[in-house]
């Protein structure tokens, strides 16, 4: 038996002095969803045929989600007045630095892509809305810049989205001192989870029937990959060293077990797949339940990983 007595306040012992609170999981969730939204709206644009007006409007989801997420990130900073310091340096070893710069790239790419995606009537409405803020000329200006480059923009938009999605997972996995975050698979895991939450967000809006089928297919594929990657993360940690086994024990019998299996696995992965399969096979009435469950599951996954990682 070993008893350790540490005479100090410590982030690792005193839960009041934790490292990251609600802000980081909220940001990882919104950032991941924005990444999924970017990838899916690029895919919708690259397909043959006309997009529905809803699908066109949804190209604006990513910049809005990223903005709210960046707000959460800002609230997390302990030294808020120095936030500009992120943009006076690029440190290639620091995923936090990569993230800060990716977020800057996201804005021009998403806004140009959205301007290229909206139709004439929508651009007029956007100009009207932005006109009240004195930015009425912006949509037309962006549209002029994007003209004739729609396909290239869609591909750039897709790549930036994938980068954003992978980054949200890499942020945790490079912090080697926390065993639960030690898996490099967190990058692809957060990417596919972001893809499925992005699809779930789109499914809450009245897109065309044919677009809905397309999104549901992507959602199912993303959930399938997510299950596979989760299994690999758990297997990897439990067959690794003692630290990894202890960390993964938090969701295999430890204090995060109930939340993980009910919210993430059953609620966020199994139930939505079941519902979407039933809706597709038996032509049941489509409800918002499956997408909402996916969103809850995606948020719970990040919340649990961020919280449990700091305990391990």
């Amino acid at each position: 038996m070993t008893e350790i007595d540490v005479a100090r306040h410590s982030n690792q012992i005193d839960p009041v002095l934790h490292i990251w609170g609600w802000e980081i999981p909220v940001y990882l969730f919104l950032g991941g969803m924005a990444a999924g939204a970017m990838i899916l709206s690029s895919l919708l644009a690259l397909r043959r045929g006309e997009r529905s007006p809803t699908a066109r409007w949804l190209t604006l989801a990513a910049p809005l989600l990223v903005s709210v997420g960046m707000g959460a990130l800002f609230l997390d900073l302990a030294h808020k007045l120095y936030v500009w310091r992120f943009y006076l340096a690029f440190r290639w070893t620091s995923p936090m630095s990569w993230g800060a710069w990716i977020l800057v790239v996201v804005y021009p790419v998403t806004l140009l892509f959205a301007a290229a995606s909206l139709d004439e009537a929508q651009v007029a409405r956007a100009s009207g809305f932005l006109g009240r803020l004195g930015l009425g000329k912006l949509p037309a200006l962006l549209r002029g810049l994007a003209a004739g480059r729609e396909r290239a923009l869609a591909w750039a938009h897709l790549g930036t989205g994938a980068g954003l999605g992978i980054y949200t997972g890499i942020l945790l996995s490079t912090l080697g001192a926390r065993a639960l975050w030690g898996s490099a698979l967190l990058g692809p895991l957060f990417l596919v989870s972001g893809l499925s939450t992005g699809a779930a967000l789109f499914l809450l809006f009245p897109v065309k029937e044919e677009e809905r089928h397309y999104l549901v297919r992507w959602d199912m594929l993303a959930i399938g990959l997510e299950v596979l990657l989760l299994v690999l993360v758990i297997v990897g940690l439990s067959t690794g060293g003692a630290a990894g086994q202890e960390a993964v024990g938090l969701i295999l019998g430890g204090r995060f077990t109930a939340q993980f299996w009910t919210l993430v696995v059953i609620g966020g992965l199994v139930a939505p797949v079941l519902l979407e399969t039933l809706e597709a096979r038996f032509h049941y009435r489509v409800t918002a339940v499956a997408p909402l469950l996916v969103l809850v599951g995606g948020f719970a996954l990040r919340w649990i990983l961020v919280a449990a990682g700091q305990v391990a």
Partner: protein
Amino acid sequence: MKKRYAMAMDTRRCVGCNACVIACKTENALHTGGFRDWIVQEVSGTFPSLQMEIRSERCNHCSDAPCVGACPTGASHVAEGGVVMVNKQKCTGCKACIASCAYGARYVHEDGFVDKCTFCLHRVQKGKQPACVETCPTRSLTFGDLADPESPVTRLVRTRRFKVLQPETGNEPNLYFLS
């Protein structure tokens, strides 16, 4: 020869009096609840055959410091003699360094930036010892330059049995616990 500052901590001399903790707090004017060093008492075995080790711990000033790599702004950096320092004018308080440290050596200062042990570099540069070393009543702490073969810390590491904490991290910590 490039300096490589390190500290040897004699666990057989230390009585856990916390004088190093208070000396550090006073020297560096740390706020309430902020500590750059701390005492760990580790009791192991089964009663009645118990043994206790007392350690005075602080930042390990790792030769391969993950906190410096994790810092997005360059606030965390390696200064003279391999000492890991935080430039508070560059720190955004994003806490990536805290998450990357296996030793829990960093904390958020009440003014927002991340704070940690500096090996009292401001004293060392004037030829003085770090505050904790100077204060230690049992002379458990020895600070010096490992690159100098004749420095007291080099001699201790050469002649005594020692361990470093969590060598499996691969960070090459520079705090040597003598036993």
